[in-house]
């Protein structure tokens, strides 16, 4: 079979200096029309969970409250993800355009960019952009001001409700859901929270229309997506690719020739071993054939010199440290997994102990309170099941 070339795109980083015009034009449409356009574009959240963005805006627009908020989630903490920083560096105005239109349709008057502390060096650049943005909003007659809120080194604060707790001056501990932020978010008010990339994509929709956006990608996975590529590859970096490609297509383009596995979606995602490259597609769950993996866009390649035990151990230590500790399955579960694989590796526990640990991750999946604890099972199971020998010997 001929090698399929991945379709590379340059929509997000294209320097569209006509954004004031785009805003003016979009502001002439009715709120209903804008929301319809967003829904028909098929845009889904790029922060990992893949919730339809148009619907999120619609729900918040329908919530009755005098005060509403728009938050841009720039906490980008998932191992292997670095695209949001690049968007904020190169095309911050696209993100702000998305926030302004969101404010218009939902009736929000205040917005925040929650920027991870690790990216503090971006603040001066963003402040400059925000200054310009405030004037533009004023000219458009939009009562909306955006400020930066800095994080302080906590991965869990990327989880939307933990992020809001953190903004309220509390420990970053995820809340129970429901209520969802669209009803009760920051300060208990209806809040739209979107990933940086999601907001940047809305710009493409406003500029070119929903149809052009839909034309990209396949079935339930519409549009392009930024991928953060790292690990054993000659070409690490950020790439905008069409959704729906298989891992094999990806590996053909990015591998150093000796790729044995790809971690899709960061530490909380899945490890895809070589034998599954062909049957695994990258996109949102839906009508894609075979297995499909939703993703925040982290792609880490491992070649055959890498020990999958070390990889798993690194992820588990990450989760153990970043767990907020609020619920027992996650707090104790992560600790036990770190100790468990160590004991098996040292021969202090029999290989069958791995099956117990696998069961433990099943339990965590159903009993942990938030996505962090629930998704530890993803990498644990996909690594232990595919590379069991490496865990033991």
């Amino acid at each position, binding site marked *: 079979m001929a090698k399929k070339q991945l379709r590379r795109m340059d929509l997000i980083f294209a320097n569209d200096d006509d954004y004031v015009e785009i805003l003016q034009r979009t502001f002439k449409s009715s709120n209903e029309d804008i929301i319809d356009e967003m829904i028909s574009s098929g845009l889904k959240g790029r922060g990992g969970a893949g919730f339809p963005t148009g619907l999120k805006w619609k729900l918040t627009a329908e919530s009755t409250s005098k005060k509403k908020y728009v938050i841009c989630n720039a906490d980008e903490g998932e191992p292997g993800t670095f695209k949001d920083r690049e968007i904020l560096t190169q095309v911050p105005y696209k993100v702000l355009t998305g926030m302004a239109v969101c404010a218009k349709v939902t009736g929000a008057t205040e917005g925040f960019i929650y920027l991870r502390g690790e990216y503090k060096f971006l603040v001066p650049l963003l402040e400059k952009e925000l200054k310009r943005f405030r004037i533009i909003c004023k000219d458009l007659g939009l009562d909306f001001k955006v400020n930066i809120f800095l994080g302080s080194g906590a991965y869990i604060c990327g989880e939307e409700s933990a992020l809001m707790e953190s903004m309220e*001056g509390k420990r970053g501990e995820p809340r129970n859901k429901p209520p969802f932020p669209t009803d009760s978010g920051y300060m208990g008010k209806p809040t739209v929270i979107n990933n940086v990339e999601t907001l940047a994509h809305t710009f493409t929709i406003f500029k070119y229309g929903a149809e052009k956006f839909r034309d990209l990608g396949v079935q339930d996975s519409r549009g392009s997506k930024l991928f953060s590529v790292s690990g054993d590859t000659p070409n690490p970096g950020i790439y905008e690719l069409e959704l729906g490609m298989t891992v094999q297509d990806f590996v053909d383009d990015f591998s150093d020739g000796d790729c044995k596995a790809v971690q899709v979606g960061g530490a909380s995602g899945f490890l895809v071993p070589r034998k599954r490259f062909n049957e695994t597609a990258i996109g949102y769950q839906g009508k894609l054939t075979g297995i499909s993996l939703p993703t925040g866009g982290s792609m880490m390649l491992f070649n055959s010199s890498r020990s999958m035990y070390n990889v798993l151990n690194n992820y588990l230590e990450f989760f153990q440290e970043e767990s907020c500790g609020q619920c027992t399955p996650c707090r104790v579960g992560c600790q036990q997994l770190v100790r468990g694989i160590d004991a098996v590796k040292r021969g202090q526990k029999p290989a069958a102990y791995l099956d117990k640990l696998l069961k433990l991750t099943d339990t965590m999946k159903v009993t942990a309170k938030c996505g962090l604890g629930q998704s530890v099972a993803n990498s644990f199971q996909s690594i232990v099941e595919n590379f069991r020998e490496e865990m033991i010997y």
Partner: protein
Amino acid sequence: MTDTQTLVKELVNKHGNRRESLLPILQGIITNNRYISEYAMMEIANELDISRSEVYGTATFYSFLDTKPKGKYVIRVCKTITCSMKGKNQILLALEDCLKIKLNETTPDKKFTILETNCLGWCHKAPAMLINDDVFTELTPEMVHQIIEDYKKKGIQEKA
């Protein structure tokens, strides 16, 4: 008023005295003092009219909000998977060698502290580290020596 009291007052004036101001205030203490003392927490609690344990609870949750004394320059070496694959350990060794301290220690002159941290988001340019807010990527042991030399000089210049 003590220095800490003055600093807390300044930060409260700047960020407000609501609960939502707590994180920016704590971050301001870090920028100035590199760590948040119990005394500072007490002052903040008084200013915001919340209990000290609330301030303590928030302060101890975040990895960048140190509650133990740290050096003037806090070095955080990324230890997450890609940096770890691309030579994080050599970077740590180089730092330990330059500064004659171990991981999690502070130099006797209180200038440098070496810490590890989770993913900094520079996996495509691994290995990476932060010194306070500044980012250094695609590090080699030689570069580390040079960077630390530069920071040592910087300290002398600032004193002069």
